[in-house]
């Protein structure tokens, strides 16, 4: 059974700040996507920044940072499972 202990949720001010942060990261992502001289580093940077945005929304807007740990585990199970399936598909298609 999922435990019921939670932390209080953030205020509206925090939500606005997080939204501004997400918008800024998106702007940086778009700028990076046009910088050809970055080479392979471009992909790494874009995936990293996309990951930062992804987990920021999940943690703050979806309240996973403040809710019970069980919910976190359920969602992580989906993400880890997907990565395993993705790796298996790529291996099966000999994409490595």
């Amino acid at each position, binding site marked *: 059974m*999922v435990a*019921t202990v*939670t*932390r*209080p*949720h*953030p*205020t*509206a*001010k*925090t*939500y*606005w700040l*997080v*939204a501004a942060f*997400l*918008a800024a990261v*998106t702007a940086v*992502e*778009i700028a*990076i*996507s*046009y910088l050809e001289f970055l080479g392979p580093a471009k*992909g790494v940077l*874009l*995936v990293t*920044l*996309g990951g930062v*945005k*992804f987990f920021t*929304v*999940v943690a*703050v*807007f*979806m309240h996973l940072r403040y*809710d*019970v740990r*069980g*919910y976190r585990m*359920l*969602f992580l*199970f*989906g*993400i880890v*499972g*997907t*990565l395993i*399936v*993705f790796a298996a*598909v*790529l291996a099966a*298609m000999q*994409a490595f």
Partner: protein
Amino acid sequence: MAVATDDVFEEHDFESTADPIHRTRKTAMWIWLGSEVFFFGAMISTFLLYRNTTNDGPGAEIFNVPFTSASSFILLTSSLTMVLADSAFQRRDQRQGRIWLIGTVGLGLTFLAGQIFEFTEFVEQGLTLSTSPFGSAFYMLTGFHGAHVAAGVLMLSLLIAFSLRGRLSPDHGMNVELTALYWHFVDIVWIVIFTVVYLLQI
């Protein structure tokens, strides 16, 4: 039970969190969202496998990244309005909650209009569902995401209607929270699609 308000945290209705029925519904929602990660993960994997299989038809070069970037900002902003709506309903401020919900619906509809415009442009440039594996994978992935946004807009519209009829009492606050979870999920899927399908391909 409510907790003390300070500069960082706000008053939050913890009774709903402790209620077994609400807890079960929220757990079910997270299980379903976890399964949705698999669903979109499979679609994104398929796109990555076929991203270069264009059969001499149009490929990623036809993407209009500035336009899609604007769409991304719109969807990100809708996550803000959604969380503010959820927060207002948690405070039992129905009027404020409704205003933010209407804003979220408006932004969701704008995103969908942008997607329809984008699809129309791509079809005119020769990229259809059957042009190539690239086209099939692209339209299936972004189309299913669009369908999820449309379903979210429908759910939000129902919440607004319930609220106007007085059928969204504080006891039903969980409905807003669960819809908010769904809406944010749609947003994070788009974050991945925007990065993998658009930005990494140009």
